[in-house]
């Protein structure tokens, strides 16, 4: 029996190819070459959270889109608490505006924000198809975290070159090197099969992921003086692909009736040389390509850009904001949004459901007053007068995953001509240490918190250990 038929031969070749492809698909399906998620799958978690909010019919009002600068530089819970509306940060590390465009397109399936804030670092950052390996892996991760069929497929062709596509679509083809670089991971993935933990969605997650808690050290500040800025603004160039994506985002927002605003989060003032030239070049391009879209340039805010505590302690090219820096920047963003979009942003804090959602969350007690029946915070004083100052309230509440208890005093900013608020106030308390029946008395100083202080309200804070039970506030003094 002869088989000299090209058709039959072709069928056999296709069958073998199908077997190989099926093997890849099975390997992908059981996560055999799944990369580690570094114990914090925040990229995946954002999309899961976004879908869950949609599923739970919780609307989003402000969507912040960008890369790692966004999720470290903006605190969505603080922003929500300050706005009295719902904000979410949808950002992925190492990605650019081209990614952001598709993120926004897909996100609009799950939410209808009134305002989209597009962080600008992704405009200069990199270009699709011209990525370094790290950026490619980041882009792949961001791409896979999305999963809406049509947009997902369309975006693949836009974000990856043809030779990158197989690796972008298949973890096996991307990470097959684990076979020899990390065989233990392959074995462990095989044993766990599909049981690799998904993102933990306990509690309310709105996209924040801050990795930096300490600011610039003295030695690094000295290095700025000695060696100059590590980044030259003249070398930061916008890519055409990112500008095109910016245009598309602007058009999409116009179509959907969404206000789009550009936000430049700061780096430390000494970090970038030729900052003015860089800013000017970007603004010229944006004005031409995205006319009418406003640019909030926080780099120009000396309160932010001059404060070493607000910035990641790095001399590398890519400097992020610290936890306190992000809260300060979030305050400025909140103020700007309220000034511009107060009429279109809903006042969700007028509903009990909103307070139930945010009660006890980060920033909630800094900007909201505990509601009746609040089970998290203790109110020790309300609407009291101290000397010439008007104290709004004094609260205590657990924070930082219950690791500490915050004591917070909110005071109205003095009127013009009145003395400036003191840097520190002292409070006298009766307390008991848990497990000890003896009642003790102590003076606890409350320091002014600049990153939480606004034009209308001064906030003082101090953190105590959670095993101390406060019993009574006896007084406030200097």
């Amino acid at each position, binding site marked *: 029996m*002869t*088989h*000299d*038929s*090209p058709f*039959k*031969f072709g069928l*056999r*070749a296709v*069958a*073998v*190819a199908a*077997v*190989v492809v099926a*093997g*890849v698909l099975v390997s992908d399906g059981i996560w055999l070459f799944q990369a580690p998620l570094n114990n914090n799958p925040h990229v995946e978690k954002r999309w899961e959270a976004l879908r869950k909010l949609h599923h739970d019919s919780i609307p989003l009002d402000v969507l912040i889109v960008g890369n790692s600068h966004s999720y470290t530089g903006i605190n969505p819970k603080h922003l929500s608490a300050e706005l009295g509306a719902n904000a979410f940060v949808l950002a992925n590390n190492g990605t650019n505006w081209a990614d952001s465009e598709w993120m926004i397109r897909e996100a609009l399936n799950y939410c209808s924000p009134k305002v989209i804030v597009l962080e600008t670092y992704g405009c200069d950052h990199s270009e699709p198809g011209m990525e370094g*390996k790290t950026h*490619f*892996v980041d882009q792949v991760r961001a791409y896979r975290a999305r999963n809406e069929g049509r947009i997902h497929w369309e975006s693949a062709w836009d974000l990856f070159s043809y030779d*990158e596509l197989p*690796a972008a679509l298949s973890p*096996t*083809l*991307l*990470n*097959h*090197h684990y*076979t*020899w*670089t*990390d*065989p233990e991971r392959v074995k462990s993935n095989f044993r766990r099969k599909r049981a690799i933990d998904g993102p933990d969605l306990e509690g309310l997650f709105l996209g924040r992921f801050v990795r930096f808690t300490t600011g610039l050290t003295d030695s690094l500040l000295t290095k700025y003086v000695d060696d100059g800025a590590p980044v030259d603004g003249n070398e930061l160039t916008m890519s055409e692909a990112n500008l095109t994506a910016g245009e598309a985002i602007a058009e999409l927002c116009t179509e959907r009736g969404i206000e789009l605003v550009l936000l430049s989060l700061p780096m430390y003032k000494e970090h970038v040389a030729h900052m003015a030239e860089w800013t000017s070049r970007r603004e010229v391009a944006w004005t031409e390509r995205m006319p009418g879209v406003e640019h909030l340039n926080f780099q120009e805010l000396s309160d932010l850009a001059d404060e070493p505590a607000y910035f990641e302690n790095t001399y590398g090219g890519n400097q992020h904001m610290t936890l306190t820096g992000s809260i300060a920047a979030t305050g400025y963003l909140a103020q700007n949004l309220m000034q511009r979009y107060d009429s279109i942003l809903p006042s969700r804090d007028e509903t009990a459901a909103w307070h139930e959602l945010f009660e006890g969350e980060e920033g909630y007690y800094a900007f909201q007053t505990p509601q009746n029946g609040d089970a998290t915070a203790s109110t020790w004083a309300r609407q009291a007068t101290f000397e010439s100052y008007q104290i709004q309230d004094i609260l205590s509440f657990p924070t930082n995953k219950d690791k500490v208890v915050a004591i917070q005093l909110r005071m109205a900013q003095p009127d013009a001509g009145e003395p400036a608020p003191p840097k520190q106030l002292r409070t006298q308390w009766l307390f008991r240490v848990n497990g000890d029946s003896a009642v003790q008395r102590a003076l606890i100083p409350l320091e002014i918190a600049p990153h939480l202080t606004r034009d209308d309200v001064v906030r003082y804070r101090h953190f105590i250990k959670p095993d101390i039970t406060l019993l009574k506030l006896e007084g406030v003094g200097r």
Partner: protein
Amino acid sequence: MLGYFKYANFFIDSWVTAWGAVGVEMHASTLQIILPVGISFYTFQTLSYSIDIYRNRLEPTRDFISFAAFVSFFPQLVAGPIERASALLPQLLKPRTFSDERASSGIRLALWGMFKKVVVADRLAGWVDVYFAAPEELAGGDAALALVFFGRQLYLDFSAYSDIAIGIARMLGIELMTNFRRPYFARSFSDFWERWHISLSSWFRDYVYIPLGGSRNGKWRTWRNVLVVFLVSGLWHGASWNFVIWGGLNGLFLIAVDPLLTRFKGRVQRVVAPLVVTAGWCLSLAFFRGQGWGGATEMLKALMRGGGSAAVELLGTTEAEWRLAWWSIVAVLALDAWGEWHEFRAKPLSWSPPRWIRWAGYAVVSWAIVLFGIYGVNLDDAQFIYFQF
């Protein structure tokens, strides 16, 4: 054309350097030339066509399309095998029919080539790059490994391309000439050159060595002709004195070592001679791969330095990859040894497994390439070495 594109800058530089050596300072600007891919290959292919017609050994074709296909036949265009018009043109001119057996053999060869290139050669390429980047820092053991690894890489890389080219052509019904025949089992240097890059060696034999007189005019003339062929062959590989020295060294090995190797007989010859030939060949590769004269001599100095090898740490690899590389090398070597054994016994390999086993084998090799191959954004895959020639 080849002289302009490939050698103009080399000769200008050499001219300036030569005058500089005797104290005459000359300034010459080199030409901004982009070397067309595969120029050395298709130039030699068309040269053979012209020479064969000149010698009345071939009728000129009047079929322009077939001639164009002969010059630019895509599977072997950029890195050979360098085909003779007398072999390839008739195949292009006559109608071809599909053959299941031939196509299957073609797929097998192309897949095997892919495996050799993607799994073994490119894995070694990264390590060879590390070794040759700083030969002055290598211990003797590592220098030896560098040369052995490069020898394997060069063979697997180039023979892989030939296998893929021959395999694809075979699927299309065109039979290209064999380009490699287990060179590391050669029993003399002349035997080596009948097994290594056969299409080029035979080209030089037919169009340079024999016209110069070959071995017909006594020992000295023969040696002269051998040296000329190897020096020109070195220059063919690249416009650099390193390649000329590499070619010259191989010519000298053939002249000086082969008479000694022929004294071995029987099993000793079958075992010892290939080791001597391989050692000499690998030594010469210091000039083929080294960065200039300095890089090559540093590698040879390192070889003399003594000391062991700290390869896994030095190369920044894992034990798993180290084992994988060695197993792959051994697998290729074992298959070559098997082929050599069959040739020695004059018994061509006749085992033909059932079709389903063959196709299952293709799937397994494809999977091995997917799982163990050096490809993708996380790894540094390398282009075929002979693309640069």
